[in-house]
């Protein structure tokens, strides 16, 4: 670490990590949202041409990308969490931003539960898709989408308090 800190400042290093975490999270958010939409909007539906045109590609095509993006986003977030605990949470408590502190604490549980479901999620989306697991596949995917959305929104709120560009 000292070699890195000889080149860039500690502040710049953590901000860079946070920015990479943000980029991965945006890509993950896009993938889970498109997949969730593909599940929720059936192929043949009478909602009109606009929604039919909006409908993303086959849901299965996003599964590998979501697994590949979820793991490094989680690991990078776990690393940055060290800095959050000392550099962000303490002033957050001093200013009395208890809702943000509580929501961020809940975020760590939410993303952990999402991480635990990843092997099953990957199994459900393996080709050929099993009709038996159609319901489990749908709900696990929606749960993952919820974890990513929640983590993204709460992470963004915490970043606004003390992070990149704040």
């Amino acid at each position, binding site marked *: 670490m000292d070699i890195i800190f000889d080149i860039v400042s500690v502040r710049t290093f953590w901000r860079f990590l946070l920015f990479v975490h943000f980029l991965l999270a945006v890509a993950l958010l896009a993938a889970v949202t498109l997949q969730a939409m593909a599940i929720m909007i059936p192929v043949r539906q009478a909602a009109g041409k606009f929604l039919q045109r909006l409908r993303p590609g086959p849901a299965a095509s996003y599964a590998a990308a979501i697994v590949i993006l979820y793991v490094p986003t989680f690991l990078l977030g776990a690393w940055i969490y060290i800095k959050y605990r000392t550099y962000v949470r303490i002033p957050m408590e001093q200013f009395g931003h208890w*809702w943000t502190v509580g929501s961020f604490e809940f975020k760590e549980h939410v993303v952990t539960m999402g991480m635990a479901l990843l092997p099953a999620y990957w199994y459900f989306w393996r080709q050929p898709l099993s009709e038996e697991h159609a319901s489990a596949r749908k709900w696990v995917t929606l749960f993952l989408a919820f974890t990513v959305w929640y983590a993204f929104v709460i992470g963004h709120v915490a970043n606004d308090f003390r992070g990149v560009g704040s």
Partner: protein
Amino acid sequence: MTHTLDVNERISQLDRSHAIDAPTSARSTIPTRASKFGTFAITFGITFAILYTIFERLNWPLFTYHPAVGKVDFWMQRARSGEGPPMYWYGWLALAFPGALVLGWIATMISGRWLHRATIFCCVLAALWPAALAFSAFIADRASFDAEFLKSIWISAIPALVGAAAASCFVTPQWAQRVWTGWLLIVPIGGLVVLGYSLKQYFLR
């Protein structure tokens, strides 16, 4: 032997291409039993959620990390003066992850029938034990006599174990199999409800 293998491979390829090309209605012909990886993955998801929730609630981390001084202590250590806030989250993960891995591996070696019953037993126990403890504490606080012994987690384990054993014995194997993948969502959501409730101190200030 080689011929047999070739034939098997071709049959398997035919099955695969048939399954991919088949319309949705015909996909139900795919074997309904989960593969070993599927058994592992589903069991891992369920057990990880249970273990993580338990370790967080009991505050049993494998280690405690003190980020301000970069120090790691075995098991749970409270904050010490001049060492900044302790972090337990990594320790809960470090304990829950191998635990779920081992249980997922064991699940691949036992019969599906036993696995489904064991899953019901563990999930019902995980729900009943804290419920029984909360109920016991409620009774103990309102009893006119000294009922502090009811607040013991081991006392509340008795009705929880009986309830879990009854639930796992009386359900039919078909029902146990049908709901098995359902636990994959019920347990993490239940865990999040418990963990979210434990954070109420932040939202009620």
